[in-house]
Structure formats: C-alpha cells, structure tokens
C-alpha cells in the first residue's frame, strides 16, 4: 500500500514556493525545487519524464560509466595519420567538432584547411588551395569519426604525425595531433610559410624523435600522470603546465637512451619546454579514449563527446549511435588580451571540450586556482563549478581527485537527462580564437554547452524506448 500515511511526511514542493510554509509550520520536512520549465518546451519535458529513473537507462548508464572508469588510456607511439587512421582517404582532411561543409566553415578553420593543402603539397598557392578545398576533391570529416581529437580547428591531414593511445582494457585506440606551440599556428587558421615549415619540422624531426623516444620508454599510462597534474594546479584543459612538465620528465631519460642526434635532442627538448600546452593534445586523446569506452551502450544517456566546429556545438550520446545533436556555437564572453574584444571572437571552437566531457577541465576547476582569473572567475566560482557539475553527472571519477574539495573525485559522466531536468549546462573552459584566420588566440573564458543539444538528444532517446516501458 501507499507509503504516504504513517511514514513521516516529507514533501518536495514544485512550482509554488508559498505552499512550503504551512507544511513546515505543521512540523513536516519540505524542500523547495527552484523550478523552471525543462527546456521551456512541454514536449521535451514529457520526453524527459519518460527517461527519469527508467530502469533500462539506469542499467545502461551503470555499464557505460563503469566502462569509462575502467578505461586505461596508454601512450604507445607516434605515427602518420595515413598509416594509423583506418580508411582515411588520400585526400581527407579532418576537423574539430561535428560535420561541416567547406562553405559553412568559419574563417580560422578555412585558414587551417588551406594551410593543410599547402602542407600536403596538394596546392602551390593559397588561392589554389582554397579552390581545391571548395572543389569537392577534398573529403572533410570530423576528427571524432576517426577516433581522433584536435584542439581549435583540429585539422589533421594524411601526413601529419599523431599521438597514438591504446586502451588495453577495451582495446580502443585514439589519436590526437601534436601541439604546435603558441603564436601563429595552424589550429588558429594561420597558414603562412613559417607555419607550414614548422609543421614540416614536426613531421620530419619531432615525430621521429618522439617515436624513437617512446620506443625506449615503452608504454605510458596517462591517467596517473593527469591525476598528479590535478594535484599540481592543472585542470588539464586550459592549464597543462604541470602535466607538460611531468611528461618531459618522463621523456628526457628515454630520449637520451634513444641516442638522438644532439641537435635534434636540443631542438626537441627546447620546443617541448617552451610550450606549457604540449600535454593538452595527450589529455584530449586520453579523454577521448575513456569516453569511447563508454560509447555505444544501448539506452545509455551518458554524453560521450562535446565538440565545436566554430559554427555549431555538437554532442554525442552513448546510446544514440554516431548522431550529433547540434546547436549554434556561442560567442564566449571571456577575458580578452589587450586590444581585443568580443567583436573579434570566433564562436566556440575545438574538440578540447572532450576534457570536460570526461570530468576534467572546467569540471575539475577546483584543482586549478591559478587560472580562475584567466578564465574570468574567482576561486569560489571554481569550487562552485566543480560542485555544480556533480548535479548533472552520473558519478565521480576516483582516478581524478580535487585537493581543494578534500580530495573529492571529479564529477564525470554527463547525463543528458540531468542537464535538461536541472537546466544546468555543462561548463567549459576554453581559449577564444580570433574570427579571422591566423590571428591566433585573443582571450579565454568560461562557456556553457548549449542546452538545445541536450533537449534534442533527450527527445531522440525517448523515441528509442519501447512503448509501455
């Protein structure tokens, strides 16, 4: 029978806060929901309601989340995209975010595509490269469709060297390009000769040197290194200073053992040392690895990718196959470098929000007080963000803990149901690219994933349920 009588009445009050007082005055427990219409759309609200605490979805999420937790991304080597990505066509260029056609790409991505055509030797001039890009001869695809991720424009072309990560638990392999450093770089759409020359150096010198070094090092599990970096002030998205230092600490003895040519060794070490973001691409590929392990569990509502192409923001959901649920990417209202403002900002760009999807980055902001001001907040905002994200996640990842929150594990496993139900959007730390190709980074800030992506995914997941469930 009903557990209503006899049990101590305890009320959840939804919609009219004035109803709480009389209940409280009668000596009963009552708690107010700060209610707003889910998605401001009653059809979405109804779809969501079918999913809440649904036994099949709960079971699917436990499975997906366990797979995420048990993933063990391990750095195994460096190889050229054409050699390591399966079925990458001869003239394929990968980009960040959900799929997008050349005509629709934002300027920084177009600039980077142009640069890639020059880099590959498919065109001799910028004009030829742009004509080629628009000719239909080049196939464009998201990095995510090949198990890869790339920051900002995220351009990967066939002869670019990639980090290779293997998860022996789930036998998944994921990839990311090598970080080019700061300044005029392809990922912000720069494509002059210096940029192309630097990419060639990465391919011809850095890549082989890392290959030789990793042969000496053997495999390197990345989660312990990231966990240590979280305790050293990184959130491993917008701050990678500690992780990059920890990485090179591991690489140098192996590089010495590899008996690299002294000039090469010097150039490689100097390059890595000069770039506090060198680890970012590894962090991203590791996050991709953990989330790929969780992807593809039928009926799971766990988000397995959040990515932006500078025009649209897209998410993928474990139980919803390879479909992207998209909404326009926001312009970030962050802090800008001197001389720049929101007017200069490109809408949100890059695959690096894979870190937040995996429970680090802004979700672990409490770990990184050093950059809270850089991304436009206070230390208490940072703690609040880490706490707030726990309300939209399936659980916590005890591999990653937050010293400032008494070593609480980071919240992880974004649940589309909880996002729509609470209206709490996943928070993302991000750099801001200039809207014109090649200018580079003009600022950084905190942004939120657009709720419309999650509403659309909730509707789609509800449609997959059998009637009567």
């Amino acid at each position: 029978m009903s557990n209503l009588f006899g049990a101590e009445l305890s009320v959840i009050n939804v919609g009219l806060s004035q109803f709480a007082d009389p209940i409280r005055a009668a000596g009963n427990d009552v708690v107010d929901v700060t209610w707003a219409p889910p998605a401001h759309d009653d059809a979405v609200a109804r779809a969501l309601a079918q999913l809440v605490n649904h036994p099949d979805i709960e079971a699917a999420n436990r499975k997906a989340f366990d797979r995420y937790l048990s993933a063990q991304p391990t750095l195994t080597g460096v190889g050229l995209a054409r050699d390591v990505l399966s079925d990458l066509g001869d003239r394929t260029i990968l980009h960040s975010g959900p799929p997008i056609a050349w005509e629709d790409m934002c300027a920084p991505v177009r600039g980077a595509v142009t640069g890639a055509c020059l880099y590959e030797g498919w065109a001799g001039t910028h004009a030829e490269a742009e004509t080629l890009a628009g000719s239909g001869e080049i196939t464009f695809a998201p990095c995510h469709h090949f198990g890869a991720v790339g920051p900002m424009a995220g351009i990967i072309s066939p002869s670019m060297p990639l980090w290779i990560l293997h998860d022996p638990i789930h036998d998944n392999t994921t990839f990311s390009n090598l970080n080019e450093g700061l300044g005029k770089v392809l990922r912000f759409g720069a494509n002059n000769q210096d940029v192309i020359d630097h990419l060639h150096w990465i391919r011809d010198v850095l890549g082989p040197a890392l290959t030789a070094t990793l042969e000496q090092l053997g495999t390197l599990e990345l989660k312990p290194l990231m966990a240590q970096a979280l305790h050293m002030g990184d959130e491993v998205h917008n701050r990678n200073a500690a992780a990059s230092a920890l990485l090179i600490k591991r690489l140098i003895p192996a590089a010495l053992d590899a008996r690299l040519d002294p000039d090469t060794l010097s150039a490689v070490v100097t390059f890595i040392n000069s770039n506090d973001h060198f680890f970012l691409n590894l962090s991203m590929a590791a996050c991709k690895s953990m989330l790929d392990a969780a992807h593809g569990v039928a009926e799971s509502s766990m988000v397995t990718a959040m990515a932006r192409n500078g025009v649209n923001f897209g998410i993928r959901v474990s139980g919803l196959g390879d479909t992207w649920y998209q909404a326009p990417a926001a312009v970030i209202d962050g802090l800008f470098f001197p001389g720049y403002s929101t007017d200069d900002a490109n809408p949100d760009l890059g695959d690096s929000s894979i870190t937040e999807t995996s429970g680090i980055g802004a979700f672990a902001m409490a770990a990184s007080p050093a950059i809270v001001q850089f991304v436009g907040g206070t230390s208490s905002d940072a703690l609040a963000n880490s706490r707030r994200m726990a309300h939209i996640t399936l659980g916590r990842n005890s591999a990653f803990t937050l010293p400032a929150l008494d070593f609480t594990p980071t919240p992880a496993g974004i649940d589309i149901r909880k996002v729509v139900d609470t209206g709490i959007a996943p928070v993302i730390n991000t750099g801001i690219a200039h809207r014109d190709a090649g200018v580079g980074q003009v600022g950084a800030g905190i942004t939120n994933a657009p709720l419309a992506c999650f509403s659309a995914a909730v509707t789609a997941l509800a449609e997959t349920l059998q009637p009567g469930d």
Partner: protein
Amino acid sequence: MTMGTRIIADLYRDSVALMQISSTVSQLDGVSQASCIMATPANLELLHEAGLLSEDPGALLNEVLIAVEADNDDSLARALDAAEAELRAEPVTATPGAEQSEPLRSVEMALDAHVGANLALIATPGPFATAEATKALHLGLNVMMFSDNVPVEDEIALKTRAERDGLMVMGPDCGTAIVDGAPLGFANVVRRGDIGIIAASGTGLQQVSCLIDATGCGISQAIGTGGRDLSAQVGGRTTIRAMRALADDPDTGVIVMISKPPAPDVAAAILDLAAQAGKPVIASLLGFPPGDATVSGITFADTLESAALLAVAASRDGTQLSFDETVAAPEPARGRKYLRALYSGGTLCYEALSMLGGRFDGVHSNTSYDTTQTLNDPWSSAGHTVLDLGDDVFTRGRPHPMIDHRLRNERLLAEAADPETAVILFDVVLGHGSHEDPVAAMAPSLAQIREEHGDDGPVLLGFVCGTQADPQGLARQKKGLADLGVVLAENNAQAVRTAGGMLEGSQ
C-alpha cells in the same frame, strides 16, 4: 500616456511571484498598468487584450516580458527598472539549515538532497505538470497535483502508473489535502482526529473539515482525488486507492466521501468497496443516489453540512448534532426577487445548485447542473444566478478569487445595482494560500453597497469557511462581516436554505 516593454532573458518565475511583482509595480506613482509575464503565446494574448502591447515585443518562451503603461517616460523607466530589479533578486529559498549551495533545480536533485521525501506537491503550469508528476512517480514519490489544465489521458496514465507502483496521485486540480496533519495547498488548519476525508478536492473538503473542526472533532487524513476521478474514464482510481488506504489507516475511524455524482459503474465499485471498509462511511455525493437508494454500511448525506455532522456523530457516541434550518434575515425590499450567489468555491456552488435546482425554476449558472440553465453570458446575471467565480472563464490571466477579490468586488457592486436582486450570497474561504484578510479586501465594496442602498438594498448573506486556527482567524472574519451588516450563516447549506426561505417568502 506612454507604453513600454522590457525583456529579461533566461529567467523563470512562477505566476504567483510574477503577479506579486506586477502588483507592486502597478502601485508606483505615475503607473497606470503593469504586468510581468512569462512570454508564452497565451500570456502575450492577455497583454494584447489588456491593451498593454501595441506590437509584438519579440520575446521568447524562456523570457520574462515586463509591460508598463505610465503617465510619462520617467515613470515608465522607473517602473521598468523596478520590475527588473525585483525579477533579478534571487528568489528566497526558505530551507532552514541548508548551506549556501546550489538551488535544487529538479525533483531528482531535491530527492538526492532529501532522501526520505515521500510526496511531490506539483503546482507548475498545466502543460508541464504531467511531466513533473511522471518524474516524481518514477522516483517513487506520491504526488499531489495542484496544477489544473491537465488532459484526462494524462491523468489516466499517471494514475495507472501509480496503481502499479503502489503510489497515490491526488489531483490533478487538487486544491487541498491534509496528510498526517500537514496542510497541503489551500488547506485549513484543522484539529487532528479520527475522521478521514476523500473529496474531489477543493472547497467541499474545506467545508466538511472546518465544520468537523468546529465541533471539536478532527481530521486524520484528507485526500483530494481531482474532480474527474469518479468519471467513467478515470474510473475512480484515486478514490479506490484512498478508500483502501483509509480503511487500513489505524488513525482513521470514520470515512467521509464527498463528490459530485459519480459515473454509475464507478459509483457501484466505490460503494462496494466502502461497504467493506470495516468503518462507518458517510457519502455526500450531492444528488446521488437518486431517490432513496441505500447501500448497507454507508450513510448518505445530501449536504456537506450533514456529512460533517454524521461523521462527527459516528466519531463520537452517535449523538447527532444539528445546525438550525435557517438564520434570521430581513425580508427583501419590494420588487427585489432574485438570488445572486457569488462563490469562490466550486463545490460550494455545486452544492447550492443541488439544493436550489429542485426548489426554484429558472436558476442560472456557469456550472452545468441538470436542473439549471447555463448562462449565455457569465458576465451578466439573469433571474436567480449562482456563479462559480473560480471558473476558467473568470480566472484566465488573473488570480483565483480566493486570492484576489477584485473580480468579486466588481460583481458584488454590479449585482447590488440590479433593482431585482433580493439576496447576494457569498462565501469567504480561509486557510493557507487564501487572501490574508478577505473581509478587509471585500469591506469597501460591501460598505459601498450599504451606503448606496441602505435598508432598501439587497440582503447581504455570507458565511465563512475556516477555522479559528487559520491564519485569517475565523472569529475575526465573522466579526468583520457582521460589522458590515452581512447576515451570517454557519455554513453553505444553511446559507442556501436561508436564501431559499427568503425568496419563497417574497414570492
């Protein structure tokens, strides 16, 4: 005069909060009209009708629209700023002891924070109420749906699900309930006792519980089923559940069931169940059963008053209390021959129709009842008129008449101005959620009627549904009415009988 609007993006406030802000801003100097709404199509339409919108403001669903009409640009700007400041103030979430943390933004989040919760009280706008109730049931919570405008198919689905999971759904459109002594929604503060009530919910439940309280007896549980529960479609699902629960409840010794006449098949099932409750059952089904049908173990009462008294008798030693048939009232002045009853309580209105319908010809109402005529225009009375002012036609875009007395005050003056009006009958409903001082809110209009018409005017006949422990205080409200020259009855049935006697006497 000048008009202006302002849009506040990404903000949601409930309708009560918005009405409060609208009312505060309307009272600013130089402001003639002000309204804050969620920018739904229906709400925008209301602003158009009110003349507060000359063009499409371009506001989206998740935005609050402030619309103001003011004497000049300065007043307009001040009003818009004031409204925005009020809207942006963080709503106070009065959860004592809660640390400064994230507001609880969903039922699930609230349940995570309060693991022992066992009931969700849902008072969201209708189109979202089913979703909230569904979530609550999925999370193992009983549900009280205060929300109205919920489709009957949704009600059936929710109640079927609840039945499967051993949970209770009260409502939709459940205005009030009392569970383990806690008043839910618009409830009176009544003594605890051994009388359990099952009611469609609303003022029928309030009337019976208050009358029981007045005798010194009390209420164990009061369950609101929603007005459609006993229809053939819904099949009495919640009534059945409540009947079983009260039969099992050790704190309940007597069961009172209050409803409009049920669908025949449903009535049979319910009465069968009631007969097996093992406790005295009093049924006041307002016109049911027809004639002198009897069911063993069940006592039928033809009014709410008699249901309350029969319950009290069963709860005590069987001694039957009674109210006087009528109260003393002056004779209506010559030429005044019609009753005008202005109810804020829907069940009270229905009870009046059930009592008057067979007694007088030509009773008009906006509530459908088989022996009365439907008013062509609810805004204009004809002959004997008995109105439910809580009907959608009157509450569209404005608060319920138990909260906001403006509409009834206007109608009081209009009825008084009709030279054929003999008696104006009205209810005053107290309790949580009702106006904080209803008699004070009505006083200017009642005083104006006395002043304009003196002893030649219509007889003002009222009654107060409430208890002394209610926030408004029963004695204080009654004294206020008496001081204004209102003839006071003890309850609705007595008031209707008194009015009937006066009208028969004057015919």
